[in-house]
Each structure stands twice: as structure tokens, then as C-alpha cells.
């Protein structure tokens, strides 16, 4: 069971307090009417399913009720960092600096 750092509570809390909420940084198209079915499908259905560094959303369901972002290595299953909703995707350098899982 993971220990997950909620950036709003600023505490490491056990995984049972959280729910996974899918890949992060997938913006809802603002111009939905103007884009093609293919582009809309891309937004709806296509996910990276990445092996390695993955940005994803978590919800502190049984805690502060906030959604936040996390960077996790899907190979080692290690959280590298978590950050508040709305913050930009960390750069590869920032992720590298935060890693201790090689």
C-alpha cells in the first residue's frame, strides 16, 4: 500500500485514503464544436499507458477531497513527486532531480 504525499494536506497518507483518477495534463478542448471527431476521440479515449515516468491524477477522497497531480514511475511503482492541480507538468530535469528510484 503506497504512502502518497498530498500536496494540499502536505502529508504522507496511506493509499486507502486516495483514488486514482487517470492520466494528468489532458486538457478538455475549449473549441469542441470546431474539432474533428478524430481529434475529439483522441481527447476522450487515447491515453499514453506509459512504461516509466507517468503523470497522473489522484483524488484525496477520504481526506481533503482535492484532486492533485503525481509523477510515478510505472516500472518501479515509485511516486517521484506530487503537485497541485493547475501546476504545469514538471520538466524532465525537475523529475530527474526528484528521483531516487533509478
Amino acid at each position, binding site marked *: *500500500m*503506497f*504512502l502518497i504525499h498530498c500536496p494540499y494536506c502536505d502529508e504522507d497518507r*496511506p*493509499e486507502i485514503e486516495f*483514488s486514482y*483518477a487517470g492520466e494528468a495534463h489532458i486538457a*478538455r*478542448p475549449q473549441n*469542441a*464544436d470546431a474539432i474533428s*471527431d478524430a481529434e*475529439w*476521440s483522441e481527447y*476522450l479515449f487515447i491515453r499514453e499507458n506509459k512504461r516509466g515516468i507517468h503523470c497522473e*491524477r489522484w*483524488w484525496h*477522497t477520504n481526506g481533503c*477531497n*482535492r*484532486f492533485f497531480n503525481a509523477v510515478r514511475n510505472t516500472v*518501479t*511503482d*515509485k511516486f517521484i513527486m506530487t503537485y497541485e*492541480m*493547475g501546476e504545469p507538468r514538471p520538466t524532465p530535469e525537475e523529475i530527474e532531480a526528484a528521483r531516487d*528510484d533509478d
Partner: protein
Amino acid sequence: MTTDQPNPYRLSDSGTRQISFTFDGKTYQGREGDTLASALLANGVHLMGRSFKYHRPRGVLGSGSEEPNALVSFDRGAGRVTPNVRATTLELYDGLVANSQNRWPSLKRDVGAFNNTFSMFFPAGFYNKTFMWPRSFWDKVYEPFIRSMAGLGLAPTKPDPDVYASTYGHCDTLIVGAGPAGLAAALAASKTDNRVILVDENPALGGSLLSSEKASIDGASITDWLAQTEQALRQAKNVTILTRTTAIGYYHDNFIALAERLTDHLADAEIGQSRERLHRIRSDKVILAQGAIERPLVFHGNDLPGIMLASAAQTFLNRYGTAVGYEVAVFTSHDSAYGAAFDLHDAGVHVPVIIEARTDIDADLRDSAAARGIEIVLAAAVSNCFGKWRINALELYTPINGKTRRIKCDALLMCGGWTPSLHLWSHSKSSIKWDDKIDAFVPGKANENASCVGACNGDFGLQTALEAGGRVAGGEATYTVSEVPFGRGETFRSLPNYKDVSKQKAFVDFQNDATEKDISLAVREGFSSIEHVKRYTTIGMATDQGKTSNLNAMQIASVAVKKSVQEVGLTTFRPPYTPTTFGALAGYRSGDLFEVERKTSIDSWAAENDAVFEPVSIWRRARYFPNGSEDMHAAVARECKATRTSLGIFDASTLGKIEIVGPDAAKFMNLMYTNPWAKLAVGRCRYGLMLREDGYIYDDGVVGRMAEDRFHVTTTTGGAPRVFRHMEDYLQSEFPELDVWLTSTTEQWAVIALNGPNARKLIAPFIDGIDLSPDAFPHMAVREGKIFGIETRLFRVSFSGELGFEVNVPAHYGRAVWEALFEAGAEYGIVPYGTEAMHVLRAEKGFIIVGQDTDGTVTPQDAGMSWAVSKKKKDFVGKRSLMRSDIVANGRRQLVGLLTVDPNVVLEEGAQIVADPDQPIPMDMIGHVTSSYWSETLGRSIAMAVVKGGFDLEGKTIFVPMPGTTHSAKVCNPVFYDPDGERLNVG
């Protein structure tokens, strides 16, 4: 050896109490402190079980939790039978009852043993190959046959009456294993300010020390050193010691599951005492000191009772004072077995020969053996074993001259080297690496804050273990140790034998009955990955997880596939480390506590009034209220009729409720629902339809506008949590600029639905502050006032098509208001109704239930609910998807009504629908029945269905094929009753 004493194979007289126990119906004597295995061996009983596939006689292989053979059923009476318990870990108590398994009618006369005679028909992959065809034979012949003939113990047939506890724990240092390395680590950690937990699966601390008579530590005997160490640890306030506790799994971020056995060793384990306790421990640091497991040698006949690991015999001797025989031969390729041979000899057992696979050994060992008069034969092997129920002789083979020699013995010890225990280490996703020096895998890089010390790190020897254990916990203690050197060994990928390989039965995995031959066969048949070989031969897949077999299997496979052992690799270890009872995992969650059951504040009234309940998500809801001996059909017909003609009362408290508040509340509602909200007046309600972003119906419910900035939203009973999440997700992730707060209020309100022409008359005398007249309080409106003096949000809504009110009161007033209304309703013949009547009433009106009439692929258009979708709104969740080409395409399944041609036929919900009943199978299925009921009001059956192109089929006949008959039905509009809604307008 004297046969008149109760335990003819007992050597030491330790003075512990004599106790009796029963195995397979026969009573024996044992001693306090024995395991079932040591007590049986003390009685000279080696035959303890039958093997899984071939039903071969088996005795113990090991002396602890690695044991693959000696599995027994531990019987404490009805419901308290535990199958597949290892005799080597089952602690003896006075009156213990155990039985052997996988044999019928008895251990010695077992009809299944013919599997062994015909074993040429049971090679690797036998199940996969033989039982593929024909299918009907699998169901009727093969599977029942396999189930009865192969297998382990029988599952208990009665409910388990025992109680199981569970708890959480936190510490700085968790030490797994209380052998020399673990104890030294605990001693060092006890001197820090760390909170320490030390666990061991045995009843006593000591691990391998309990079997090492001859060593001494810092001048003290092992017994004395252990006593001092245990006292020091028990006095340390920061150390918790858990014995009889197995670390069964190692999960993310140093989360360890421990299964503690509390009463299995007690003669008087009463029901009600916790039998086991599952600890979930989070530790900053984990020290694994799990030791190593000895490997068997793989030779023909190596599974005969009496043949066991050398270390097991040493443990039975030194820890339990039991000789495994009086003529004990040894077959080894590692120095460590000599220690066992010497201990046995020194205790008075005759060791006729040490058969050494290697060509040379150290002079020290040779001299020690010579001094004891023990013959050593180098570069030799055991080529055959004799005896039916227990070994009575072996055949020694020396390949250099091709000679064989028969040697009498009543036990044979074997040692093929040692395998560090990396199970938990691997659970944690830490890596392993091959170590040529010891021919085994050792820990690689840690994936957690964890270390392996001592033998499980590949560091053998007592002094090494003690000092490594101390160091890893931050100590610097040195130890003065006198010990028998652990020595070294050599691994033989295959042992010499003059016999044809195909005629040999050399077991690798004793528990799954897999042999060397099976591995070679798997490789010959093209399985080259070790994971495939494992699955094909089933090696390592038994309940012992291959503790004694994995490395041998891998080494044999490496020869067969002509790859190095590193390239072949090891299969994955998975929790639990040893078999764990379901009780321990379930903990308190059994019986009534198996799942959380939510009850409304009115539930107790329903129970007192003989309601029949049904689960709806995790709520318990009254399904119907039978009068006397009424069945459901009669009760529901009566409840429906009363509601349509006068008055019904229904507990709707389970409806999900969310309060949406803030300056941007209406804007937010506009984005979350398909309907328009901006112009909904305060005090009015609207039916809201919610989609997912993919355009499919997600939830629905009536929403009341309480103020400009406040909405009272209701959701389906099961949908409340997911709707709340869906709303929070969009609010936080996509629309954070909106100034809105969401609060789940499901539990805050009790909701009493009153439906029927007399609904207004019933409540009128008790309402304050609300004008109930139809003009002032029209259908789909909400008012705040008081009922019986209690604050209420009163909705005028209807899910039945009758005049309806939903009385919302604070939940703790729910039952009081219900009872007051019920009492006052007597005048109108008020009838309580349950979910079944509610379903019928709504179906008569064609109202959908999300999740029953929709299934996650139904759009508003498909459900005939385009009217609920705003054409003007610029955006709402799901809007863009409603324009996707496949959603607007023809031929989608659409929600329609069905009227069976025979009005008495009630279709089965879920039944498939076809257009042509005469089409040969497989038929084209064009839809399915979603809702189907007997309508007492209409005097006939009604149904709803999703049917391909259904809207265009109105008036046409479709068919519902069922076993033995085919029903026909006409497609119709799903509003069966009062299509113009006139019944809502009762004056």
C-alpha cells in the same frame, strides 16, 4: 533402541510433559514442545501423506515452513478443520487431532495410488494436453475425476466459528526472522530510540540456533545466549516481539502484512478467543533475516519416506530430541551435511555412509568422519532407493567403475546446497543477482529502505550472521563465536545414474509431483522461458511456492535449454510467503460485518413491519411489505393498487443528495447536466440528466432550486458517490474558476415519498408555512416550511405518475415523521410500499432507471429523452460526443415499450430479442429486455427494452426466444399509463 517405551526414536530426555495426540484415528504419545512431525517421528512414523498427482507415500522433507510433503488436516471439531497444515509447523498439544490427506480409504490402502502405476500417462502438461477434447468430457468425466483423485486436503464444510482479529502498527525498524542475524539486529536496534518490531514464524526465538547444539557465543552455550538475549529484548521498552508470526507479504513503501497465530497451539482454544491476528505494519526500515533453505538432491526415488534434508534431521535431533532413524545414510554435495551426520553419530545413531557427489572434500571433514568411523564414498551417487512405506536400503553407484552397492538404512539425508530466502525481498520489487560462489541468487538492489542480512543475503556462518545483523541496525558489536564451519558445496545440474533417464522418478517439486524428466520434456516440447516451464510443469506453483524446488528446477532447465542460470532467471515470488487462512485475511469482516450495510432512519420501522429487504448498492431497502402469507406478486399488486387509488408511503431516503452552492451554482449546473438551469425559478424543480464526456447517460434525478445560488440535487441511490466525484473532478480540474461548493447531504435528509390521489389531503393538516394549493404549489416545485413542527424541504414531484410529495426532514426525525404520517394515513387506507412496487409504478409511466434501462452505452436520443437536452447551451459535459458520427448513425439500440401478445406472459429481464424467430442459431440478436413486470393496474404484463432501430419498429412484432418456447411482443411507446399526465392534477 528399546521398543517398550512410547517414543522409540526419542533420544534426549528433556523432562517436558508427556502428552497424547491422534493421527488418522490412532493415539500416540508426544511431548510438549513437539510439532506433529517431530512427535510422529519419535514414534517411528514417517508416512504422513500421499502426493498430489501420483498418490505416492510421502514423509517429511523439511522441518519447518518449507515442508512440501507432510500436509495434514488439523481437526478441532465442526467448522474448525484446517486442511493442508504442515506437520512440521503444527505445534502439539494434549489431545490434538490430525488426519492425513489425499488418500482413500486410508493412508496405506489408497485407491488413487494407481495414478503412480500409470504415471507414464501423467507427464508434464498432462492436464493441458489430455483434457482438451471433447468439451463435454471435460465437464462430465475429466474434471470430476481430477478433482477426486488429485489434490490436497478437503475444504471445511461447516462455517468457521472462530474469531479473527486485525490491527495496524507502525515502527522504525521491522526485523523479519529471529535467527542469529535478526537477533543481533534487534539487540543493536534496541539500544537506539527506534521503535522495533521483531517477528518470527516459530514459537521460540533462535532460528537456526535452535538446531545448533555445538556452537557457543561469547563463551555462553547457545541455550544460555538465547535466554540472555531474549531477556534483554523483552526488557527493552522499544522492542515488540511477535512469535508464531509470519511476514506473509511485503507491499509498497515498507508496508508488511504479518499473520500471528494466537490459539492453534493451545489445547483449550475456546471459540471467541481471537484465533489469528493480521498486523498491517508500516516501518521506516525493514531488515530481512529470513535465512536460507536447504536444497534436495534430485535422484531416482528421492521422495520415499525417510529421505529428507540433512538440516531437517539435525533440527529434529537437536531441537526435538528425535532421531529420524538409527541407520542414517547421507548423500550430499555440500559440507553442511557433515555437521548433521556428526551430530547424529555423536547422539548414538549409526551413520553407515556419507555418499559425496564431489570428487574431493576438505581434509578436516575427512578426518572428522574417520575419527567417528564413518565411511565416505567420493564421486558417488544414490541410484535407487528401496522400501515401500519407508526407505530400508539404498543403492550406491560409483560411475568411475560403474559399480553399485546396496546399503541398509532406515533414513537418508540429502543436501544439495542452500538457497537464500528471497521471497519477501522479491515481493518488494527489489532485484536479485546470481552469485557463482554459492550457486544461488542473492539480493541485488533494494527498491525500498530494506536490507537482507545473514544467510538470506548469501552470508553463511554464525559469526558472519551475528556481526552483519548488528551492523545493519547501526551497532558495532563483535562476537566471539565457536562454531562448526558452514563450509561450501558444489551444485550438480544432474547426478550420475546408470538407469535410462525415462525410467527414473527424480522429484524436483515434491508438492506438485513434478520430476526432472517433466522439465526436460517441457523444454523438448518448446517451452524455453522459465515462466512457461513453470506453468507447464506446475513446478513452484504449489502452496509451498517452490521453496525447496525453484532453484533445482531452474538449474535443470538451464541445462535443457542450454543457457546460463542467469539467463534462465527465477520465477516471480508472490505473497503470501506461506499459506494463510482466509480467516486471517478477512479479519472482522465476516458474517454481519462482511460488508458495510447502510440503513435509513426508517429502516427499523420497515423491519418491525415485516418488510422483505433487498440490497441496492450497499443500502438495505424494503422490497415489499407482505400481509400475512402474501407472496411478492400479491403484495406488490396490492401496494400498487393502493397507491394508484388512494395513498402509498415509500422510504426514498437512499436517494443521493448533493447541495450545490455558490455565485456560479447555476453555471456549474449548466455544465454538469444536459438541461438548462439559468432560467429555472427559485422554488421550482427540474428533472436533470447527466452524461459522461463520451455522451452516455451517467445519472439522473430531480433538482430543486432553493435560492439563486443554491440547488438541491438528487441522484440515483447507487450513483451518489460517483456523481459527487464526477462533479468534484470537473469543478477542480476543468472549471476551477467557478465559485461553487459541493456538499454531500445524502445522510442528512430522510425522504418520505407520498404518492396517490390522497397525498395532499394527508399532509395538509400538518404543514406550516407552505400554501399547498395546486396553483401556489404546482407539480415540480419545492418549498421550505414545517411538518409536525419540524423543518422540511417539501418537494411536489412524482416517480409514480400519481400526485406526489417528497417530505425531506433532518434524518434523525425520519422515523418519527414517517410514523406520524402513517398513523394519520389510516383514514385513507395508507399502504407502505417497497422498491418492487416503486419499480412497477415508474415502469407503467415509462420512467427509466439508470443502470437498468441504460447500460453505459445509451445516449439521451437512444433513451427517447432528447427533450431533456438543451439545444441552446454552448457547452455541457457530453455535448460534443452527441455529435459523434457513430452516435448519430442509424441502427442504434433505442429504448421502447413491449407488450407481449399473451398479456399473461411476463418476460425475463435480460432476455435477448430477435426479429426472426425461425432464423437458425446463431441468431441475430437485436436487443434485450431491460425492465419487465406484471402491471396490476393495467391487468397485463409490461416491459421496456432496448432494440436496434426500435423507434421505427413501433407496432411491429419482435420475438423473445426462451428455453422451450418463443414469446412474441409488440413494440410500443414505453409510457403505458396515463400518457397525458392527468393524474398529477388532483385538486
